[in-house]
């Protein structure tokens, strides 16, 4: 059954999927495609990229439903999910090879067609998509493989992989989307899956609360995004990228109307919600309640980068308003610094990595903000590898030590038997994160920081220095963790969680508790990721283009609208001058050296405090007591949100319900009922039952009538 023979059969399938009934819409979708004929029709089999994970999800879902399936023994759902993701990865590689450097479009079937709003289930394939596809499908396959062993024995095994399948389906839809509405579908789908996965251990109230928090904060971002979509539709009459970019190509920041300039700010709100930037980052640290593979896949590599992808994808829009990208840059920079400070003071391994993710995302946004989409996406690419590695490593530790994550209770893991692979891979990951020279983190972070100094505008140099300081903090807290956990004297206490109720006879006394060394699947995945973390940086160096193969790809994608505007904003000379003035004038050159030095300094500080004499760290902590407490409590941001937003809203709810509904409205209605009764009771006393009363009443009535008649006659009316 070669691909060619399948081709005819499958093409009918795609035609079938564009049903005849939607005749009105059908013609339009082809029409829309026709209009943007400039974009070549992409490979039809691209539709399998999201379809395979969806299939896997459905199969695992069925497994979860059937009663007979016993989660303890068989791992079938795990394997079929990994298979599904692998197939999706293979298809995306095939599609990437087909894309090369140009942009393609594939229409699968017509989704929403009402009035002039036309949103099909169609894909927009360009080099940016291929990079993202590589990251998403690649990392998710590795994480699924890892999880198949990590989650073994868990009661919700099949359910877990169903959600993972759904997540990858949603993420791929997001990346491949050809129009904003489908992007929004992916956007919310990913939010949903993160809700379901964070709340996977639904018996833990903290997990349920964290899941709910994640979904709601995302939803706030999504509202901004949705309003952005509507505004674009209102302004340009279409939500599809191709016609949108065509319409935008004619404009420049001056010629565009005011309301168009608001669109980037709205979209930005969505990006910050999803990628956990400053105002809406609170959900990411709590999202660590979910199982570690989830944190690794969703909250490190794929979902959180959706914001960066969106801005890169809609770069032509962002470029139009002069203030949009600087705001993105500044918020990115501030978030990086802010998260790094909190990361320093945390004790839970996953929380530290979560804050470091927020901080690295800050870097990416700073990258895009300072008009270096290549740097941002490159950092995204490398970050996916080493952050996934770090998370999975800490997951292995957690898995082995029955849920123990507190860095104060584990140390000297290097000496324990069977944990060699984990230690070495974690070392590579930490070095990459810290920006150790010649590892992936180093290259990608440099491109961003260097660009900060190059692009003119709104205090970017200050931003650059802030970035350097954050790089120092990053190096420090990464190695604070590494030295604490993996080096130093060997002592550890098991966690409280009877993790994944594996039936091992884990006695909980410290002495004869022996950690459960990770299996082959975990070690394999860790080593692959370590290789990725180490060498993914060179993609941005070799390959002839200005920033290597990676730069070439980004140059051909929509992202380069950012770089074009960079060239336009300060004329061609800015960049060229850099080269001619030799090593010190070109930021890209000296940044290599400076950031290397900073990385090393950070590591040394961490080494001194957390390996040489840990007491010094404690003494230092005593001296700067208030700051330490402040950082530990995460600058009290969560409590602030609770007081400023959650409590007033809940109070309003009570006020509306107790006073608004029950008292005012129901009161009015009851009043409406009471009026007739009131009138009745006023007339009641007339009937006292005494004969004379009635007689008198009649007589009075009679004489009144006669009097009136008489009066009328007098007046001469008769």
């Amino acid at each position, binding site marked *: 059954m070669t691909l060619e023979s399948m081709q005819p059969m499958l093409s009918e399938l795609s035609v079938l999927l564009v049903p005849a009934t939607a005749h009105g819409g059908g013609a339009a979708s082809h029409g829309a495609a026709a209009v943007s004929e400039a974009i070549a029709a992409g490979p039809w089999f691209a539709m399998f990229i999201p379809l395979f994970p969806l299939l896997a999800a459905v199969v695992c879902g069925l497994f979860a439903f059937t009663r007979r399936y016993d989660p303890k023994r068989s791992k079938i759902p795990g394997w079929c999910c990994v298979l599904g993701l692998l197939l999706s990865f293979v298809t995306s590689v095939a599609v990437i090879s087909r894309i090369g450097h140009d942009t393609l479009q594939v229409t699968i079937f017509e989704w929403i067609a009402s009035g002039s709003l036309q949103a099909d289930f169609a894909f927009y394939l360009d080099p940016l998509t291929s990079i993202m596809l590589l990251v998403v499908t690649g990392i998710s396959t590795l994480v699924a493989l890892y999880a198949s062993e990590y989650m073994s024995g868990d009661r919700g095994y099949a359910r877990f992989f169903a959600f993972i399948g759904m997540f990858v389906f949603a993420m791929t839809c997001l990346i491949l989307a050809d129009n904003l509405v489908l992007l929004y579908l992916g956007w919310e789908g990913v939010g949903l899956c993160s809700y379901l996965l964070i709340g996977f251990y639904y018996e833990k109230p903290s997990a349920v609360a964290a899941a709910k928090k994640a979904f709601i904060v995302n939803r706030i971002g999504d509202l901004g995004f949705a309003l952005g979509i509507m505004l674009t539709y209102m302004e340009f009459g279409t939500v599809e990228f191709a016609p949108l970019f065509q319409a935008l190509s004619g404009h420049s920041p001056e010629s565009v109307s005011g309301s168009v300039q608001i669109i980037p700010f709205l979209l930005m709100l969505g990006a910050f919600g999803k990628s956990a930037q400053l105002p809406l980052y609170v959900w990411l640290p709590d999202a660590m309640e979910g199982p570690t593979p989830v944190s690794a896949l969703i909250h490190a590599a794929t979902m959180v980068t959706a914001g960066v992808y969106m801005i890169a994808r809609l770069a032509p829009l962002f470029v139009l308003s002069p203030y949009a990208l600087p705001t993105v840059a500044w918020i990115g920079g501030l978030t990086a610094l802010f998260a790094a400070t909190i990361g320093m003071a945390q004790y839970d391994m996953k929380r530290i990595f979560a804050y470091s993710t927020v901080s690295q995302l800050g870097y990416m946004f700073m990258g895009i903000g300072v008009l270096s989409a290549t740097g941002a996406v490159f950092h995204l690419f490398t970050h996916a590898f080493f952050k996934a590695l770090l998370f999975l490593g800490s997951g292995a530790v957690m898995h082995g030590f029955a849920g123990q994550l507190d860095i104060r209770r584990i140390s000297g893991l290097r000496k324990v038997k069977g944990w060699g692979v984990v230690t070495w891979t974690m070392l590579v990951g930490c070095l990459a994160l810290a920006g150790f020279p010649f590892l992936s983190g180093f290259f990608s972070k440099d491109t961003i920081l260097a660009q900060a100094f190059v692009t003119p505008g709104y205090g970017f140099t200050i931003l650059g220095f802030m970035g350097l300081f954050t790089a120092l903090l990053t190096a420090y807290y990464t190695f604070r963790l590494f030295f604490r956990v993996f080096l130093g004297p060997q002592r550890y206490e098991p966690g409280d969680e009877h993790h994944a109720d594996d039936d091992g006879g884990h006695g909980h006394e410290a002495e004869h508790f022996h950690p459960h060394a990770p299996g082959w699947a975990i070690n394999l995945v860790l080593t692959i990721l370590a290789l990725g973390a180490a060498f993914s940086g060179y993609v941005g160096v070799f390959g002839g283009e200005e920033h290597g193969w990676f730069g070439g790809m980004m140059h051909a994608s929509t992202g380069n609208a950012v770089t074009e505007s960079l060239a336009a904003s300060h004329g061609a000379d800015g960049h060229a001058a850099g080269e001619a003035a030799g090593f010190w004038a070109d930021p890209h050159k000296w940044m290599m050296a400076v950031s290397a030095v900073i990385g090393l300094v950070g590591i040394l500080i961490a080494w001194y405090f957390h390996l040489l004499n840990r007491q010094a760290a404690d003494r230092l902590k005593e001296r700067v007591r208030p700051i330490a407490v402040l950082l530990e409590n995460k600058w009290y941001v969560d409590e602030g949100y609770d007081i400023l937003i959650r409590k007033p809203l809940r109070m309003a709810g009570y006020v509306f319900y107790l006073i608004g509904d029950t008292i005012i409205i129901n009161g009015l209605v009851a009043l409406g009922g009471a009026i007739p009764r009131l009138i009745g009771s006023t007339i*009641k*006393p*007339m*009937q*006292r*039952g*005494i*004969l*004379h009363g009635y*007689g*008198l009443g009649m*007589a009075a009535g009679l004489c009144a009538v006669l009097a009136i008649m008489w009066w009328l006659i007098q007046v001469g009316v008769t």
Partner: protein
Amino acid sequence: MQPISIISLNAYLLVSAVLFALGLIGFLTRRNLIIMFLCTELMFQAAAIAMIAFGAYHMDIQGQVFLIFVLTVAAAEAALALALVVALYRRRNSLDAEVWSEMSG
């Protein structure tokens, strides 16, 4: 047979009106059940005079015929009324009209 003049008609009507008014006042003020019925009889009587006066004025015998029927009704009414009064009296040993006021609102 000469019909009576208008002036005398007016006079008779005056008398019957006065009697009627007195009967009404009596009915309204007296609390004794029997007297109240007596006052209604008085009102009957007043009406009778007016009827006859008009009959005479119009030289029409029907005034008197009608009075005969009025009398029969008055008699019937009186009989029943008194039977009722006796029954009521036997119930509450008092002729006071205000004793019977359970039918209040």
